[in-house]
């Protein structure tokens, strides 16, 4: 166990998040059972008031989750000195079996919290709160995931024993070993590039169709999620190489370091922004047949689509520019 200030900070944040979530979940359960918008009973009034609290809590959680995602990666990165053989976050996360699951859960929970806020935003713009049940069911779905994240994170930090020999990004993300990440790394770069650009183009096309024809909401959601996954894979497979200018270095974490101008942050930021708004836009589309939402839903959906496409666009633009401007030549390796 290591008592690093950032680890204490992460413990604190996950503890607070879980406490707030459990608090809100109990009300979510009550809202699912007792909600009756037509009633003027005191119970209904007090439930309505609780909804404000839960919106506030979720907004804060979303923000905390966002910060803790990056703080977590940073902490892993910062601790790499303590583990023989680890040179960046990739190695530290590999010290025990909990590292990567925590990271994945953090990302998933961030996306879910973002989607919840989008649904909430849509819901409160209609006078009869038509999505209230969906919203609170989703909350009850998110809560166990957050608790799991917090538990795994605790297990991860508790299990950090310095001087464990770990594999560093060199072996984890190199094309020689055989696991899923290394398979991504060993993808031929031309094909990987083709897949990346095709997925971005498809997402763009689906977004435009959804915007003008109001069709294919689900497709757009799926595509934006897929684009997120493919982009992360692309980061490992070929984008990172242009930053490191090394044909064998495939690490998705080293680009977060200051040597590479913290480039990772704005890349991941645009991706996260793109996936949250993209999924949100698709979900918004599914509610367009609800009468009370009709006047507002299309406006919100349009904004979300634009935000999503803009984020992915910026990501693609940065990456493409980097590849064009860099004198590093990848093909041939």
């Amino acid at each position, binding site marked *: 166990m290591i*008592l690093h200030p950032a680890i204490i900070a992460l413990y*604190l944040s996950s503890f607070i998040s879980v406490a707030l979530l459990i*608090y809100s979940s109990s009300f979510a359960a009550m809202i699912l059972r007792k909600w009756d918008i037509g009633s003027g009973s005191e119970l209904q009034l007090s439930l309505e*008031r609780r909804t*404000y609290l839960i919106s506030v809590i979720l907004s804060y959680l979303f923000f905390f989750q966002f910060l803790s995602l*990056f*703080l977590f990666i940073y902490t892993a990165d910062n601790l790499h000195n303590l583990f023989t053989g680890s040179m960046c976050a990739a190695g530290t996360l590999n010290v025990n079996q909990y590292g990567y699951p925590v990271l994945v859960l953090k990302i998933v929970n961030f996306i879910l919290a973002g989607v919840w806020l989008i649904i909430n935003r849509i819901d409160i713009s209609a006078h009869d709160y038509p999505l209230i049940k969906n919203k609170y069911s989703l909350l009850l779905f998110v809560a166990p995931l957050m608790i799991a994240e917090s538990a795994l994170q605790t297990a991860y930090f508790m299990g950090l024993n*310095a001087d464990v020999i770990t594999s560093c990004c060199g072996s984890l993300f190199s094309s020689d070993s055989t696991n899923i990440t290394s398979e991504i790394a060993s993808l031929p770069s031309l094909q990987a590039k083709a897949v990346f650009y095709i997925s971005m183009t498809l997402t763009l096309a689906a977004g435009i169709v959804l915007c003008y024809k109001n069709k294919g909401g689900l497709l757009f959601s799926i595509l934006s999620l897929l684009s997120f996954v493919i982009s992360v894979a692309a980061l490992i497979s070929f984008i990172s190489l242009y930053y490191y200018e090394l044909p064998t270095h495939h690490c998705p974490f080293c680009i977060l370091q200051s040597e590479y101008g913290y480039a990772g942050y704005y890349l991941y930021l645009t991706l996260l922004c793109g996936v949250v708004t993209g999924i949100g836009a698709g979900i918004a589309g599914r509610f367009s047949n609800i009468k009370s939402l009709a006047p507002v839903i299309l406006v919100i959906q349009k904004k979300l689509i634009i935000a999503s496409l803009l984020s992915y666009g910026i990501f693609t633009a940065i990456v493409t520019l980097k590849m064009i401007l860099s004198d590093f030549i990848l093909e041939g390796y």
Partner: protein
Amino acid sequence: MNSRIEIQRNILDFTLSSLLRRKTKNAVLMVVFTIVVFMLASIIFFTNAVKREAVAVLQNSPDIVVQRLSAGRHDLIPADYIKTITDMKGVVSVKGRHWGYYFEPAASANFTLVVPDDGGEEGRIVAGKGVSRTMRAGDGDILPLKSYKGEWVVLSIKGVLKSDSELVSSDLIEISEKDFRKIFGIPKDRFTDLSVTVRNPKETLTIAKKIKDSFPDTRPILRSEVLRTYDSLFNWRSGLLLIIAAGAVLAFIIFAFDRASGLSAEERREIGILKAIGWETSDVIAFKFWEGLVISLSSFMAGIILAYFHVFVAYAPLFEPVLKGWAVLYPEFRLVPFIDPFQIATLFFLTVLPYTAATIIPSWRSAVVDPDQIMRSQ
């Protein structure tokens, strides 16, 4: 969109006027908050800067230091070990080192005496800045040291190390090998320890194992271990310090929670009025959000800025008593300001986040008063 910004501006306007109307109460809260942030930030800035500097500077320390242990204590290492180790494959060179501590009774200070690579110049020494300060002796002055036999060895100071290297050299005295042996009575065939240079850094561990096998009474210390010692030098304890400081943070959070939940009758009435004249619950929540933000953001930033000045401009005067301990010789080192966004993020998590969490529920509670309450309670 513009109107949404305008709403927030208006609410912020009201927030600020509300804070100003209760100046003393809020000022106390902000001062306490600032002090908490300042304390934590100073600890984090200081320990991190020391660590980073140690790692940068000690990259050049010996690959392996070989100590000899006898009855669980460091012992002088015989010179014939050198030959065996030099012959090992992968070893570039082995040097016997002389260094030790000298207690100066007049000033009751501890000095570290070291012999340089080239053996030094007999009768003349180079003093660290701290030594020169403690002994009030400068360039050209005489510094007599007492030998193990009680005789005075008179040494003249040929130079004083510059103060910008004080973090490594404050208590050092560079002395010649001859004078060193004369003062401590160390036989010709004994050294304090050995420093081993290795050809390929990847083989360091193998060579250390070989040394250990050949001489079971030795203990090789690798440079990577020295670096890691410094990397985690304060980790454990600064974590501990943070936990102690957490007591302060906790007390502050309780204070903040209490303040947020124990609204004065006057504040309660004001929120009632706001709701009655057409503020919505979420507007009042926004007002409370801004109130928390104004307090926490201003205190947070002020705390960080003050801590930066404290640690890197004033050189941590508040830590001096702790670091100095019983030592007479206190190195006046100037830390190089290593800061990064994540220290700020960590601090944010440790201070603003619990504060915010503590005020969410109270502020919501105050925001959901019935709008018609103000009419009913007359």
